[in-house]
Each structure stands twice: as structure tokens, then as C-alpha cells.
């Protein structure tokens, strides 16, 4: 067996455009197992588009995108990529489902039609609910939760299918700071203990820089990539946003 480990995500010369307007151009990067990467950049810089391409929701106009050693379009077991979409905490709040029902639904893509939950599945559901600290209100309707609690439910749902990669798209819009901090702690645990590879799209450069191991700065092309501290100390951020950016340093 080969000992050379292939990167979990490998993007090479990716180009994407909406109609004729380029959104991503000359994008090449790779992400190794266990990485914790923050993707930053101005609005319209292509952050969400990049995630959607990694998920196979959008097809690249040119270039190659390989995820989990396969071209995204050939990837059958897509549940191995967990995804928490943008503004998910605000959408479909009135949906009459409980926390547990939603977390359980994360296993659906793994199940055939008419599939029932095994004992192992039920154990996994309990496990992720415990991990995301949502166990105490597992029988509550999602409409009765706060934005932060709901956010953790969606993360638990993304985790229940035991993904190897977790993609988060600005999950903190409309969520209070205390909940954000709890959430960052959870992500740190997942990254260090479970070796989960995380890609986190955020507009909050300072907070995300204090959390992740690497930053990927995106403004239609990759402006910079590397350790957060060295990027913040360079002029790269200014180039990324096209103006002077004031930093608040978080310890």
C-alpha cells in the first residue's frame, strides 16, 4: 500500500464565471488532511462560489477540482463532505421538526430508500448531539431555539454522517458573540481530536485568524495563502480588500 497521502482537496487552474463575469480565475491550491483553513475576501470575491464548486453544486468552466481523491462530479458518497450553508440559522425556522429529527436527517444520504436507522446510527446521533452540546434540548422544535443553538444543530447534522471535510459558509451571521465562542471551541475540538479538515468562509478576518492554522485570501484569484499571523503582518490584506484594514488582535 502506498504511504504517500494525497491531499483531501486539490484545485488546479480553476476558472468560473457567472454569465461572462469571471468570479474565480487561476485558482490552484491543495488542502491536506487535518487542515483548518479560513477563507477570507471581499464580497463578490468568490468565497461561496468556491465552496459550491467543491460540493459539486456548480461545475467549473475550466480547470480540475479533486475532492477525496476523485473528481467532484464522480464522487458518489458526497456525505463525506459536511456542509453548513450561509444564513442557515435564519432559514426555514418554522419547519416543524425537532433537533433530533434534523440531526438524524444528516444520515439520509447514507441510507437507501426505505432505510432504517441501525443501533450504530443511533449511537452516532447521540454522540454528535453530545459533542455539539445540543443533547439537553434534543426533543425541542428548532423554532424554539436561539440562533446559536440552531447553528450547532446544523453542524451536528453535518457531522453525523462522519464527514472527512467540513465546509462552513459564514455561519455566524446574526449570532451573538458568546455563541460564536462556544462554536469556535467546538470546531477546535473537532479539528484537533477528530482530525476533521475544516474550511471556514468568514468576513471577520481578525477572529478567524486567531482560530485557523491557515488563511486563503480570495478576490477572484488567490491573493495570498499561508499562516494567519504572517498574512496579517504583510500588506496582503490591504491588497485583498483594496484599502487599508484596521485589525483588532485577539489573543
Amino acid at each position, binding site marked *: 500500500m502506498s504511504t504517500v497521502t494525497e491531499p483531501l482537496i486539490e484545485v488546479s487552474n480553476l476558472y468560473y464565471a457567472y454569465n461572462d463575469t469571471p468570479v474565480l480565475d487561476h485558482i490552484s491550491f491543495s488542502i491536506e488532511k487535518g487542515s483548518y483553513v479560513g477563507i477570507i475576501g471581499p464580497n463578490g470575491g468568490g468565497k461561496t462560489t468556491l465552496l459550491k464548486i467543491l460540493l*459539486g453544486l456548480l461545475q467549473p468552466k475550466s480547470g480540475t477540482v479533486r475532492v477525496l481523491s476523485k473528481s467532484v462530479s464522480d464522487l458518489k458518497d458526497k456525505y463525506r463532505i459536511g456542509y453548513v450553508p450561509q444564513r442557515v440559522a435564519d432559514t*426555514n425556522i418554522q419547519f416543524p421538526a425537532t433537533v433530533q429529527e434534523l440531526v438524524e436527517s444528516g444520515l439520509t444520504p447514507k441510507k437507501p430508500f426505505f432505510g432504517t436507522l441501525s443501533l450504530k446510527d443511533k449511537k452516532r446521533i447521540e454522540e454528535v448531539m453530545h459533542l455539539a452540546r445540543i443533547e439537553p434540548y434534543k426533543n425541542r422544535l428548532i423554532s424554539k431555539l436561539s440562533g446559536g443553538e440552531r447553528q450547532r444543530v446544523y453542524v451536528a447534522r453535518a457531522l453525523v454522517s462522519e464527514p472527512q471535510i467540513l465546509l462552513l459558509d459564514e455561519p455566524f451571521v446574526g449570532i451573538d458573540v458568546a455563541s460564536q465562542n462556544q462554536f469556535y471551541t467546538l470546531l477546535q475540538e473537532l479539528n484537533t481530536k477528530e482530525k476533521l479538515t475544516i474550511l471556514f468562509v468568514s468576513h471577520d478576518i481578525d477572529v478567524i485568524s486567531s482560530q485557523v492554522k491557515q488563511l486563503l485570501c480570495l478576490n477572484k484569484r488567490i491573493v495570498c495563502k499561508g499562516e494567519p499571523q504572517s498574512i496579517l503582518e504583510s500588506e496582503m490584506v490591504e491588497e485583498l480588500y483594496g484599502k487599508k484594514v484596521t485589525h483588532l488582535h485577539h489573543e
Partner: protein
Amino acid sequence: MFDLFTYDFMIRAFLAGALVGIIAPIIGLFLVVRRYSLMADTLAHVSLVGVAGALISGGNPVVGALIASILAAFGIEHLRSSRKLYGESVLALFLSGSLALAVIIMGLAHGINVNFLSYLFGSIVTVSQLDLLVIASLGLLTLALMVVCYRQLFFISFDEELAKANGLPVKLLNIILIVLTALTVSVSMRIVGILLVGALMVIPALTAIQYGKSFKKTLVLGVLFSLSSVLIGLYSSYYLNVASGGTIVVVTLLFFTISLIFNRKG
């Protein structure tokens, strides 16, 4: 008090009604949470074209309705998923367009006949043995499909894009849901009538949402509200000598109004 059951047509009406009462709110809840409440009404109007076509050609109206609404279901889903039109506008297009077509077809048959009206407003007296058999087979097929696809339909109803990202066959599932709606409409129209089918699918689901403590419990409550409405409606319409379809829907509305006043979820 139960002398109505001495009539065969009443027994057939209650049997068909009970089946309709069970499946309508199940499909209805999925439509409501997907913000597709008007889908049932739209397919009901489309099925009028099938009924009209069957009546002038001598075919079975329930089968005619089923064919018309399934064809339309594919058209609606195609236009909706291609995002060329706003979701609601696709429904408006099919709803009014098919009504126009049905009126023309019936006009060609030299005037709207009584039989056609019985499909518009429901007529339990006309439920034949064959109708009951068709209703029972289609109803059981709907229930079976729902059981098989429950988890998948739950997932796409909550978040379609996420379902796509997770590799679920979203297009197929959407078509299954619309075909299930079409089946339910065809099965229900003899009892409540084409113009009121939508109400039987949507109103009990809305009532159940007021009380449901989980998705499954909401489904069960929806079935209870709907089944009770059908049985109470059929029973009282017989003794009050009023239209059964209208009475059933008025009972669903009564339950809904009460649920708004006494809403445990607050």
C-alpha cells in the same frame, strides 16, 4: 342515527373518504413546509382538463385526471427547477391555463353537464364500485411511496440545496412529491371535489403544525384532523342535506380556527 350506512353508496363514500382523509394531509404537510401550498390546487385545476377529456371521450375521469396532472407535474417541475420563472408564477400559469382549456373542452361537448359539476364540487352519491377500487389502489400506492421515500422527502423539504450537495437525487424526489400530489388530487376529487381538494390537503396540515411537537407527530395529527373532518363532514352533510365537499372543508376550517385560539405552542 346510523341509518345512512344502510345505503351502499354511503359506505363507499365513507371508505373512499377515510382513505382520502389519511393521505391528503401527509402530502399536504410536505407541500406546506416547502411553501408549495398552491401545488395541490394547481394540479386539481389541471386534472379538470383530464376529467373533461375523459367525459367527452368516454374514458374514466379519475384516470384522465391522473394522466393530465402527472404530465403537468413534469412540466411544472421542469420550469421550476430551470429557474426561468418564479416558483409561484409557474403555478398560476398552469392553474388558470388549464381551467381555460377545460372550459373549452366542455364547451365542445355542448354545454357543461351535470357529471362535470359533480367533479368540480364532489359528489359522494356517484362513487361507484369501480371508483372505490381505483381510489383504494391509488391511495395505497401513495402511502407506500411515502413510506419508502419519507426520509429523503423530509431532507429535501428542509433544504433542497443541501440535499443536492449531499448527493440526494433531488430532481427525482421532487418529481415523486409532485406525482404523489397528482395521485392524491385524483383520488380525492370524487369526495371533496376538484375545487376543494387543495383545502383538504393544506388546512389539516396547517392545523397540525399549531400543535405538532415533532415532524412525525405533526404528520399523525394532520391525519387525525383530516380524517375526523372527512367523517364528521360526510356524516353531517347527509343529515343536513348539504354538499359533502363543502361541509368537509368547513369542518377542517373549524378545527383550524380552534387551533389558532387554543395553541399550546403559543
